């Protein structure tokens, strides 16, 4: 099928174009959009969190260290904020903390420019509750994770499955905050999931 957005093979230039597509789509899905560099990411996250609240929950993710968020979290803790990193040993306590948290932070695994979608492969270190229970959601989007649309993500999952990799027990495709039009067809942003969302695209140079 010929469709502009399904054309594969993305060079550097195209990646930047995809960021533009993503930024534009964020307006349609009521999501704040920020661009930053690896060096400035901690500061951008700190500024965003400052608006959203003091209690943070996030995944246990290698990228926290790679992108300098470990240090930010330590600093925030010293400043009196609560930062909980998902800990499977703590059992259901994780859900309770997520329910009380002001903001959940996740790295996007695959980002779909067309629909403004963050894809999360949830696992034992990355609970589904992080992006679901708090009122605010921050997705950190390494620029290298951006693909044109759902087609590329579906292909990737299909191929991984064919190669014998186990598909995550939950794959969450998230496009902005939750919403509903069930009352007189009026769009209400923020129903059961997060009420506000910010995407931070970080130039990871890959």
């Amino acid at each position, binding site marked *: *099928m*010929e*469709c*502009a*957005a399904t054309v594969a093979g993305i060079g550097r230039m195209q990646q930047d174009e995809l960021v533009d597509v993503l930024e534009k*789509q964020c307006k349609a*899905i009521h999501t704040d959009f920020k661009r930053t560099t690896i060096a400035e990411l901690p500061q951008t996250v700190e500024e965003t969190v400052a608006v959203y609240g003091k209690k943070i929950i996030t995944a246990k993710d290698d990228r926290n260290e790679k992108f300098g968020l470990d240090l930010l979290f330590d600093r925030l803790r010293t400043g009196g904020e609560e930062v909980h990193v*998902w800990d*499977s040993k703590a*059992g259901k306590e*994780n*859900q309770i903390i997520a*329910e009380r948290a002001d903001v959940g932070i996740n790295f996007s695994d695959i980002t*779909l420019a*067309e*629909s*403004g*979608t963050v894809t999360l492969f*949830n*696992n*034992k270190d990355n*609970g*589904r*509750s992080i992006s*679901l229970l708090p009122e605010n959601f921050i997705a950190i989007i390494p620029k290298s994770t951006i693909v044109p649309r*759902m*087609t590329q*993500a*579906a*292909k990737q*999952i*299909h191929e991984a*499955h064919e190669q014998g990799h*186990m*598909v*995550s*027990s*939950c*794959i*969450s*495709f*998230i*496009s*902005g*905050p*939750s*919403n*509903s*039009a*069930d*009352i*007189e*067809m*009026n769009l*209400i942003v*923020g*129903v*059961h*999931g*997060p009420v506000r969302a910010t995407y931070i695209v970080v130039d990871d140079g890959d």
Partner: protein
Amino acid sequence: MGLQIGDTSFKDRVQEGLKNDFMRQAVSSAQGRLRNGRLSAAEELGDWEDWRTLGEEIRTHTMENLDFYLQQLSEQVENRGGNVFFAETAEEANEYIKNVVKKKNGRKVAKSKSMVTEEIGLNEALEDVGAEVVETDLGEWILQLDEDPPSHIVAPALHKNRQQIQETFENKKGYQKTDKPEELALFAREQLRKEFLSADIGITGCNFAVAESGAVTLVTNEGNARLVTALPDTQITVMGMERIVPTWEELDVLVSLLTRAAVGQKLTSYVTSVTGKRLEEEIDGPDDYHLVIVDNGRSKILGTEFQSALHCIRCAACINVCPVYRHVGGHAYGSIYPGPIGAVLTPLLDGYEDHKELPYASTLCAACTEACPVKIPLHEQLIRHREIIVEKENMAPTGEKVAMKGYANWASNPAAYKMSAKMARMALKPWTKHEKISNGPGPLKGWTDVRDFPAPSKQSFRAWFKERQKGEQT
């Protein structure tokens, strides 16, 4: 509740719909919005017709190999620690689910919106075993509190206005704020969050199951399906047996068609794919997972001329363009599946006896067929239903049979035809005003109650034609 809603006659239901001014206003504005949303999303995607063709091909292929894909799906789900149950009837499905709930000593069931669970009447069945069932989709929750059936398959509470919703919340849940949608929704969020956290069983429907990996995909905007699949320790997915795609690649195509055709979105806020039980050391997700695959009349449709009705992906695009639905609303159909697809599907699932009027609830304008993202020839199937109702089932109303016979006699007798064409104007004179009849007698009444009927012309066509020919000769 089951497939059929209410027990009043089709005529009465239609009358009720026609008299409900708010509902008609709401439906027509919703139709406009949803229809435009679909059209602009289709245009943005580009090559919409190619996508539709691809969607149709995928659905056709899947239905022709349904046994294979269902087998593959159930193996995959079992590999991931899930239990799979094939239910031939609604009763079998309900019985199985009741047993799971009983075994788990389940007290509270959190449900996300699902048409198939409406179809099998699951909520009533669960209440029989003493479980409290909470619908968590905002629209469904409003209807549950109000004990009202859905009137649209995507926007179930379309027929309710904000004052009615405010009143329902006030009477049933002690709500004290205004009728602003934001405040109503915030109240629902607070109330339902408590329910999610205390539910021990989660039940969802299924938009598409992916046969190759056993993933069940749920397409939502509110996030309730995510909560239902993340928090309770026991989870049950109920799916119609046709809601399946071969691989993730076909999932992409059908989800892309669904979200655009249903609500004009590129993707909904949440598309969530869950597979079996939670894995070791995972906290969220169920440790006991059941997939209930419901037949309930579907396999009877396979291999018949109506097979493509099973291609339906429940987007409601046909409902959103239907001029009949626009006027009578969803409840008039007397089925949880309203509109063109409902008129096709309901008699197939539940027999002609109780639903023989539905195929006539259509102008055959074919807007539905044109809107369908997987190209189901809906209006052609409605015509076929009518043929079957008249010829095979012999179910046409006696009045209609007599009238048709009379018409045949009359129309095949030129003298009688000529005479009555002349007489018609005179016979209708008492009801004619300014060349219009607005309060007609007998069978005309049904028509003139809602619109004018033109008075028979002073001159018959034959007479006019004769005169015209004369004119040409001179």
